[in-house]
Structures are given as structure tokens and as C-alpha cells.
């Protein structure tokens, strides 16, 4: 009877373990499946295309060139390898500038009329570049499709412009977002680690039970405060403070985000590290003291090395919190998608981008895929951090204790 009971318990444990692992693997699979969909696609919105006059010698344009043309930074075709002819922009709704309302009556139901009118405009204007629905193209004898380079790994990681909703071509350059994320979370962990570890050591080894019984619940309470509240606190208090101290034009900077993130990561680091330090067996500590080591020497040479794997866990959890935090960062870093040159500039992080933009991205669209690809990057960063920290701490433990 007892054996069957044990077998059942064992089965349940195994099952729950398998299910959890499978779920995690499925989530990762889903993330990467959606993210990879971005690559190899044309950066124009589905169902739309860019066309020019048939006699225009230009066949191919890069996304940067198209953006600059439509932003009116490039005015002449000879700047992109064409004839000396000024560029005329045309969007579907511009049709009403070329024809009167009467001439276009019923255009939204009459496909042939629309097609012929667009074709007429393209035929009449040699320097035109038109952003139109791709349905009209096959029947248009006077227009020529422009070939746009597909999104590749190079333009994704190396691109410095993040304009996911720009028309006619969207730009997905994650370099500024990646840098923003790394800067903000790296500084956050640099601030949080010394403070967190110091507090953990103090609470575990030095503080009297009375102080500890007050400190511990207060610190744990910090972990329970919603991140929006931290963000709001940052916006009202830290942002003006940073602005005044450094005499900046704007207080929403990477540093502001790092400070808020550091405060948010503290409770995690302190709680986990403190538990690890308290887990050091009394006998080991007493042996050290008996050999004549002072309390500080015992903490430094015995307790911390003994608890290093737990402290590592605290660090990983802290970094995880810093890299993945969304709302608070979204509110205080300014979210400008530019490559940062100093920590005192506005930055945009990957989680903030996903949070701000996923709501508007239609399922299956380019933008949606791009946001999932961002998720993949975040996942890979966290994985690398975890592996590195584990490797380092593994070496440490062996060296110090054996």
C-alpha cells in the first residue's frame, strides 16, 4: 500500500516537472517562431507597393533612401542614381489633388477607374514615386515596381533607426534599443549590487534581532510595490532631481531609469542573498572564530564564499528584474530611440518598446514580428548573463572552499 502511494507521488512529481519544462520550451519555441518571421520580408506594409514611371532608370532603392525621399530630404532622382529630375511624391489620397471630386465619383467602389487614374498620374509625371495598393499594378502599363531590399539580420542588428510604423517603408534597426537596454540595466545592477550585498551581510551577520525584525519586512514590502508606482515616483521625484544635479536640458535619462531599476532590484537581491548567507552552518563560522579570525575576517573569508551560489542566484534574479522591467522604465527613460553616447541621455529599452507598441501591432504584421524578435533578443541576453554568472561562481566556490 505504502509503495503504491510512493509511486503515485513520484508519478505526480515527474508529471509536473515534465509539464513545466514543456511549457517553458513551448513558450521559447513560440517566441522564436514568431520572431524569425520578420526576416526575408519586404519592409512595406502588406498589400502596398512603391512604383515609379516606366521610363525611370532606377530599379532598386534601399529603405533609407525611400524614407529620405518621402521625408523630402532627397529631392532629385540623380541623388539615388537616376536622371536629373525632381522627385514628386504620390500617395493614394493625393489623387484628390490631381482630379476633382466629380471626376473621381464612385472611386472607392470602382476598381478600374482607380487603376486607370493612378496610371494616368504616373504616366504624366516622369519624376513621380508612388506609394500605392499593389492590386492596381498588374494592369498599369505605365508604371514600374521598385525593388526594395528585404529585412535581413544585418539591417536588423546594425540599423540605427527604429520606425516600425513609418510609411511607405518601416525601419527596424534594434541597435539603439539594444544599447539602451544594456546601458540602463548594467548601471542599475552596478548601483544595486554593492548596496544590496552590504544590506544582506548587515542583516544576516551584524544587525541585532530587533533591528532585523523591523528591516526585513520593510524591505520585503518594497518588492510588493507595483512597478507603475515606482515609475510615477521616478517621474515626479528622480527626474527633476537628476535634471538639477547634472544641469541637463531633460531629466528623463538612462541614469534616471537605472536608479529606479536599482531600487526595484534591491529587495530581490537583499532577500535572496541574506537567506543564502544565513544558510552558512554555525559550525563553520565557529571554527573560523575559534581559530582567531575576527568577525569581519569570518564574514569575508568564510561566510560569503560559502554562500556564493546563493548570492549568485540573487545577482541573477536582480539582473533579470533590471533587464526585463517594463513600466517603470517606460515612464522615466524618455524612450527616444537614438544610439546613446552617455548615460545622461534619453534612452529606449527593449521591454519598454514591446510594452508600448504591442497593443497597436496587428497580429501577423511586420511590426508584430519585429516585437517578437525583440523578445528573442531579450531572452538571449538573459540567458547569456545567467550562464556567465553561473560559470564564474562555479569556479569561485571550488577555489575558495577546497
Amino acid at each position, binding site marked *: 500500500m505504502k509503495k503504491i502511494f510512493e509511486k503515485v507521488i513520484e508519478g505526480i512529481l515527474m508529471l509536473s516537472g515534465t509539464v513545466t519544462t514543456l511549457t517553458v520550451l513551448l513558450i521559447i519555441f513560440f517566441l522564436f517562431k514568431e520572431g524569425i518571421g520578420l526576416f526575408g520580408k519586404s519592409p512595406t506594409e502588406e498589400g502596398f507597393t512603391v512604383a515609379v514611371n516606366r521610363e525611370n532608370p532606377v530599379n532598386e532603392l534601399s529603405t533609407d533612401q525611400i524614407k529620405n525621399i518621402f521625408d523630402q530630404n532627397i529631392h532629385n532622382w540623380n541623388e539615388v542614381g537616376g536622371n536629373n529630375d525632381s522627385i514628386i511624391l504620390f500617395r493614394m489620397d493625393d489623387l484628390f489633388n490631381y482630379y476633382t471630386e466629380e471626376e473621381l465619383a464612385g472611386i472607392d467602389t470602382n476598381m478600374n477607374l482607380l487603376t486607370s487614374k493612378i496610371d494616368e498620374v504616373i504616366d504624366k509625371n516622369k519624376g513621380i514615386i508612388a506609394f500605392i495598393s499593389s492590386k492596381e499594378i498588374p494592369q498599369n502599363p505605365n508604371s514600374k515596381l521598385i525593388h526594395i531590399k528585404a529585412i535581413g539580420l544585418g539591417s536588423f542588428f546594425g540599423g540605427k533607426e527604429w520606425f516600425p510604423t513609418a510609411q511607405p517603408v518601416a525601419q527596424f534597426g534594434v541597435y539603439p534599443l539594444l544599447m539602451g537596454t544594456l546601458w540602463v540595466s548594467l548601471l542599475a545592477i552596478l548601483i544595486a549590487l554593492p548596496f544590496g550585498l552590504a544590506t544582506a551581510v548587515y542583516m544576516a551577520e551584524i544587525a541585532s534581532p530587533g533591528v532585523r525584525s523591523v528591516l526585513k519586512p520593510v524591505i520585503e514590502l518594497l518588492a510588493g510595490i507595483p512597478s507603475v508606482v515606482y515609475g510615477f515616483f521616478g517621474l515626479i521625484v528622480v527626474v527633476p532631481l537628476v535634471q538639477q544635479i547634472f544641469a541637463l536640458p531633460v531629466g528623463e535619462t538612462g541614469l534616471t531609469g537605472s536608479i529606479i531599476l536599482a531600487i526595484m532590484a534591491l529587495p530581490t537581491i537583499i532577500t535572496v542573498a541574506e537567506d543564502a548567507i544565513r544558510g552558512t552552518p554555525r559550525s563553520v563560522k565557529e571554527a573560523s572564530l575559534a581559530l582567531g579570525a575576527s568577525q569581519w575576517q569570518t564574514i569575508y573569508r568564510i561566510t560569503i564564499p560559502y554562500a556564493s551560489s546563493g548570492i549568485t542566484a540573487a545577482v541573477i534574479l536582480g539582473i533579470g528584474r533590471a533587464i526585463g522591467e517594463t513600466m517603470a522604465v517606460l515612464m522615466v527613460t524618455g524612450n527616444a530611440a537614438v544610439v546613446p553616447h552617455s548615460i545622461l541621455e534619453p534612452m529606449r529599452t527593449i521591454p519598454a518598446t514591446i510594452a*508600448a507598441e504591442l497593443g497597436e501591432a496587428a497580429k501577423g504584421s511586420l511590426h508584430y514580428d519585429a516585437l517578437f524578435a525583440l523578445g528573442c533578443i531579450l531572452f538571449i541576453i538573459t540567458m547569456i548573463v545567467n550562464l556567465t554568472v553561473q560559470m564564474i561562481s562555479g569556479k569561485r566556490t571550488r577555489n575558495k572552499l577546497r
Partner: protein
Amino acid sequence: MKKIIISIIALVVLLSTTQAQKIKGSDTVLPLAQKEAELFMMKNKSARITVTGGGSGVGISSLIDNTTDIAMSSRKMKLSEKMKANASGSTAQEIVIALDALAVIVHPANKVSKLTREQLEGIYTGKIKNWNEVGGDNMTIVVYGRESSSGTYDFFKEHVLDNKNYAASILSMPATGAIVQSVSQTKGAIGYVGLAYIEKNVKAVSVSFDLGKTFVKPSFANAKNKTYPIVRPLFFYHMSTTANLVKPFINFVLSKEGQAIVLAEGYITIK
């Protein structure tokens, strides 16, 4: 237990017989539509209206897919969207229910109190970087805007930036309230918000859309008499086949009572 079941069944029957309609779309129109729907339902006990946001584009694509009865929108339907909607045979009907003006705000200590459209375009596309280029002090311009999911983002881009892309260096804020807060505490800041959001701790600038000949201050009166240029209509769209279902509510919104709510919510009435 029986009572609960009976009441649930009664509720279901009641719901299915009453006129249920769904409204979806622009987050700008959302608070207004919610207030209108609440009052309409109070007056017509049989009416059931659910209002959800999501953005103008979401509302219009739901209208095309037939998953909503009315689409709220803070921009006109695009030609391509109209074509898709009309493909099913019935046509999309457009009703202007209110107007909304966008104001450009700066820090109260800023000397600049008027800007032309061209200057605004320069500032938001990153070509003008210092206030002394537009008649102010020697101070870096800190540009605030909304996230790209916002209809206001699109409207400002189309109407003020002449369809050019925003500069990448713009600080994008998750909400209009955050723009007001940031502008009020940043000396070199500039931002755009709905007229209803203007507070004492920020300064609204006059704008000119005729190359600097006339500058108009953003106010309800100027928006109403059409001298203020950055005004956008707010739309309801519905398909012609559902006209009978949605007409009572739309008529209510356009009525004196409905327009009073428009005013109370900080928008501009159409008449």
C-alpha cells in the same frame, strides 16, 4: 440556486431581444463615447451598448470585418480602407460627432509664444535643435511626443509635419498626462496635447499655418470659428446596412443633449 438560474436565463433572453450594439476604435473618442453611451442607456432601458478602445485603425478594421457596429476614429478613413469596406456591397457612412483641437505646449518660463507650422515641422523632424533658432533663449529643445499607437501621433504627423517622419530623438510618452507633467518641469520642453489637457503649469503657443502672417491662440472659441488650424474632426463610421440599428444612438449624440456631453468632456461641439 434555482432563482439564480432563472434570473440568468431571463437576463440572456432580455439581452438577446434588446438592441445590442458594439462601438470600437479611437482612444481619443473613447471617454466621450462611454459617457454618451451611459446616458443613452439610462434614457433607453432596452438599449445595450458596449464601448471599447484600441485605436482608430483597430476600430475601422473591425468595422470592415463586421465585428463592430460603429467604429470611432480620430482620423478620416483612408481610401484603401474604404475600398475594403465597400467590397462587401454596403457602403461605410461617416458622421462627425465632435471636434478636437491639438495645442502645442511649452514651459511657462519659455520666451517663445508663437510658432509657424514650418518651425514646428523643423523641431519635430530634428532640423531645429535650439530655441534661439525660433526666437527664444539659447537652450536645447527637448521634444516630447506620443507613442506610435496613438491617433494623435498620426494626426500630428499628417497635419503638422506634412507626412514626414518624426526625428528618432523625440521622447515618446505613454500618455498625454505624462507629456503635460514633463513639459511643466523641463525648461526647454515642447509637446502636443489635446485642448482639454492645457493646465496652468504649461504654456500653449499660438501657431500659424500661413507662413507667419497670422498667429492664432488655441482656445475653444478659436477652434470653433475655425481660425485655429490644428483641429481634427472625430468620426463615427457605420455600414449602411446597420443604419437602423445605430441611428438612434447617433442621433442622440448629435442632439442638444449629446453635444452638451461633448462640451463637458472637453471637446468642441460641431454646431
